[in-house]
């Protein structure tokens, strides 16, 4: 019995002091996904990767808005969104104190502008995503003229690109025949 008490005294108190002191969180703990809306290019890679549809993207073609949203109540903290994010906009933080009284506080939303096609005026791609692509092309060493040409090409929607290609294809075909 005394031996047991000695052991107990030696071990001391093992109860953690949380919530009176901040809880110790291990490195690599996957807590609340922290989304930096300024870094996001609205590419929707996270929404495609999210296995539980906590992350969703919605396109409003009338107003030209792409809205990103997360529902923390549905998130399973798998970090797939962090894996696929090309700009490091989503990083799983160490926050775990997510309990809420009001369900509306579990939602976050960010709206991004869509770009209208040069030809037909229909909204088709997020402005930030397109600018990011151009910045990458610039980094890869494209000249200013090439960049301008690429920009004209990128600002046309896939549908119009196809239509513009028809005359070229016809002429190529006629040359071949």
């Amino acid at each position, binding site marked *: 019995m005394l031996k047991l008490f000695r052991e107990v005294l030696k071990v001391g108190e093992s109860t*953690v002091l949380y919530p009176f002191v901040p809880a110790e969180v291990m490195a690599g703990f996957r807590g*609340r996904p922290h989304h930096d809306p300024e870094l996001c290019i609205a590419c929707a890679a996270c929404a495609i990767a999210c296995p539980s549809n906590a992350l969703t993207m919605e396109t409003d073609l009338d107003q030209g808005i792409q809205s990103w949203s997360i529902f923390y*109540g*549905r998130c399973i903290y798998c970090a797939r969104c962090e*894996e696929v994010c090309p700009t490091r906009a989503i990083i799983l933080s160490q926050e*775990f104190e*997510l309990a*809420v009284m009001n*369900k509306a506080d579990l939602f*976050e939303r960010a709206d991004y502008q869509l770009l209208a096609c040069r030809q037909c005026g229909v909204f088709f791609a997020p402005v930030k995503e397109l600018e990011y692509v151009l910045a990458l092309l610039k980094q890869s060493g494209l000249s200013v003229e090439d960049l301008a040409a690429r920009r004209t090409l990128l600002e046309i929607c896939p549908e119009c690109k196809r239509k513009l290609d028809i005359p070229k294809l016809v002429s190529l075909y006629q040359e071949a025949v």
Partner: protein
Amino acid sequence: MFGKNGRNQWLENESQYAIHQDVNAGQLKGALLKDIQRSAFVYRVDCGGCNGCEIEIFAAITPIFDAERFGIKVVSSPRHADILLYTGAVTRSMRVPALRAYHAAPEPKICVAYGACGCSGGIFHDLYCVWGGADQILPIDVYIPGCPPTPSATIYGFAMALGLLGQKLKTSYHIQGEDERVQPRHPEIPLALRIDVEREARRMAGYWHGKKISDAFLDLLKAGDPHQVEQNIQSYLIQEDDPRLAEIFARFLEIYRVRQGEV
């Protein structure tokens, strides 16, 4: 999820079978929470969960986290309970047992949706056989998200349900600014080198770790001078002391040297 009016349909569309809290019971609950000077007993209702949440609840009442020091005790009958803890995505066949537990608990009672499944159905939200969260069938007071919530998160949720701690999470709504642009990462490093390093990192360590490892390597490349870079990498590897990291960095260095030779 956001309709034409821009309102959150996930929040507003409620199951037609949901039951609502009695007004008098709500007032009683408010009065109780203002001046709670006794223990709060918890009854746990498993509505078709995977048992991950149960394991964390029991971890929360072990001596390490010791929820019982706050008087929070898990009881085995809803008739003893003050707090009802709903875990699981609420399968079709668990709806009636969940309601029976709800009606068996004396007023005033606090209902807590626990875990991603309890809050919203989690990864099972669109299955044919689930209700998608306890709030589809019951009035819920506190949501504790997590898959599963850690014991600390559980204690935080209980403390919030009892009005001891405040809520930290707040909703946010960002609208894109005028000149909001994103620049590529590591602008000082040639794009081809960055892509090669990141691809090799993904191949060797997977996406998540690969990202961290390639970012660490590319940060070390900022020194510019090849001799200095190799020195920095050696000291970084000694500091990290991880043979797996050393192997991956050796591959990166090969790529770096090849690219350096091309310049």
